[in-house]
């Protein structure tokens, strides 16, 4: 092997071009980490939103809760079916809910507005949400125009902050609490009392969906069958994970766009790396000729220049990953195309995302460095030794 210090010192020797290449590849890795982290964050939000023992019941044909309508009387009948779990006090863990979409201005100048999901929930509704807890303020009281929301929504929408008043169908609702729901899609919503929301939106007697907790997967299957097969209901029941899987189209778009951008940028970076390495090979022709004359094989010279290219790109990869880390956990939003509302989620740079970024850097190094390295090995020793 040609000693690795030969490569490291050669890179240091022409530090300006090395640094530029490192920054260039670093920038690409940074952008790719962001794109992958975004997709991963979205996946995470939708993945943890579902508990297989929680069922969502909607009208047949509805693609989401926002376009599902169930009459209150039908909702009550479902309540009586076998398989619904109960809490310690014997209350059925069954929540009939009303979901409306409210166009609300975003905070910040020229931020525009987005559709916000407002969910009317009976008191039991909070019990059927895994990980639900109030982290600031208090719960909304039944019968009052009070609402609670997540920290992210409070930050993103006008009137959604703690103590502020949010307009829902022209009725002001005071935000009295901030809740967490394990980072799930519920954190992209504003919750208020079911009856109060029904009055405010003039939708008394109407429900959007039912949220039901069951005790076992068997109960889930039985109950789902029972609901789906009863023609009178005209309803369908799905488990939460299935529901959110169906909603993941928003994530698909981000993933496809993100990956396409990452691939295009990576190809661009490969050309930059190739350019740097071609220059390196050209300027060191005599050194290459000497190595070959001394007895280093073509393969060894190839490996040496590939290694140099790889070192360059791994340094860029490290710069890109380190540069992206401060954004880990930073939240953002996207349109949920199933509900036409805003879905908030955070960048997540887990090991998988960072591994993908390192893989990109390795690809840049190997493919970008391959052709210059091959050129180095193809040089005729006699000609290479003549280069000044």
């Amino acid at each position: 092997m040609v000693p690795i210090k030969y490569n490291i010192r050669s890179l240091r020797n022409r530090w300006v071009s090395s640094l530029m290449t490192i920054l260039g590849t670093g920038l690409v890795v940074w952008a790719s980490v962001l794109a992958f982290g975004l997709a991963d964050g979205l996946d995470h939000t939708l993945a943890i939103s579902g508990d297989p023992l929680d069922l969502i019941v909607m009208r047949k044909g509805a693609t989401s809760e926002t376009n599902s309508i169930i009459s209150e009387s039908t909702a009550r009948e479902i309540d009586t079916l076998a398989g619904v779990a109960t809490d310690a006090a014997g209350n059925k863990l069954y929540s009939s809910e009303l979901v409306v979409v409210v166009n609300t201005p975003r905070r910040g100048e020229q931020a525009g507005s987005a559709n916000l999901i407002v969910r009317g929930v009976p008191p039991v509704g909070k019990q059927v949400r895994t990980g639900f807890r109030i982290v600031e303020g208090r719960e909304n009281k039944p019968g009052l125009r009070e609402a609670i929301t997540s920290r992210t929504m409070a930050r993103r929408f006008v009137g959604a902050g703690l103590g502020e008043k949010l307009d829902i169908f022209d009725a002001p609702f005071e935000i009295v609490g901030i809740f967490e729901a394990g980072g799930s899609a519920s954190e992209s919503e504003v919750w208020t009392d079911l009856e109060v929301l029904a009055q405010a939106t003039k939708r008394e007697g109407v429900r959007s969906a039912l949220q039901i907790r069951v005790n076992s997967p068997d109960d889930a299957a039985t109950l789902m069958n029972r609901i789906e097969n009863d023609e009178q209901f005209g309803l369908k029941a799905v488990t939460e994970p299935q529901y959110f899987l169906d909603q993941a189209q928003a994530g698909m778009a981000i993933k496809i766009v993100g990956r396409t951008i990452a691939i295009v940028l990576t190809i661009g970076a490969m050309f930059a790396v190739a350019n740097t390495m071609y220059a390196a090979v050209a300027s060191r022709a005599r050194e290459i000729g000497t190595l070959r004359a001394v007895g280093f094989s073509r393969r060894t010279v190839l490996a040496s220049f590939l290694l140099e290219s790889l070192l360059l790109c791994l340094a860029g990869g490290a710069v890109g990953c380190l540069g992206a880390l401060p954004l880990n956990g930073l939240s953002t939003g996207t349109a949920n195309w199933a509900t036409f509302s805003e879905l908030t989620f955070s960048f997540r740079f887990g090991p998988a995302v960072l591994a993908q970024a390192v893989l990109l850097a390795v690809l840049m190094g190997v493919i970008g460095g391959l052709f210059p390295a091959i050129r180095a090995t193809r040089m005729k020793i006699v000609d290479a030794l003549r280069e000044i």
Partner: protein
Amino acid sequence: MTNSAPETLVKLREVSKEYMRDKIHVPVLSNTSLDIPKGEFVAVMGPSGSGKSTLLNLVAGIDRPTTGTIIVAGQVLNDLSESKLTRWRSHHLGFIFQLYNLMPVLTAFENVELPLLLTPLSKRQRAEHVRTALRIVGLSDRMDHYPRQLSGGQEQRVAIARALVNDPVLLLADEPTGNLDATAAQEILDLLQQLNEEFEKTIIMVTHDPRAARRAHRMLHLEKGTFVETELDALEAAG
């Protein structure tokens, strides 16, 4: 493998070399034969383009003859594949270049160590060999210096140490004093002579300098790709 007589280290038989330039055949060496016994110090002179460096490259196996046979240390070079030739070179040859050809980013020690990286020697054994080689060329106190921190003469000494460190049977020197002032050139020639006399290294040296050629046992004159053997005294008389 063909075994030649042990006393003959380098054997060329009817070797010709042609290059193609712009679709025109340019003959460089024509039907040349040559024997160099082990332990000999040979100088090769001749005008530019006479084929001196080509001869050296052919003996080193970094170029291939168009026709003819080249045998070095009993090995027919024509028979060897590119990779075998590369390996063979690392064991049998030491190369000394006009422009020293040191790796600018490696220290004197590391430059001399390079050929040893192709051997199974341990790190400690390599270090011993490198120190010995640098001591022979008189640069024990410059081991950690980079080429840019050395004079031309010192750089060439490092290059000679690198050529020497594998203990090769044959040293090939292409204008080793061509880039040095008179004093440094004399020192390098002293060193080559010492390597030939004390360490019994066979040396083929291409040079333009008659004073350099005088150090050799024998001078070969190349004219248009053909050898003309000349007595050194006759050369001196000719000035």
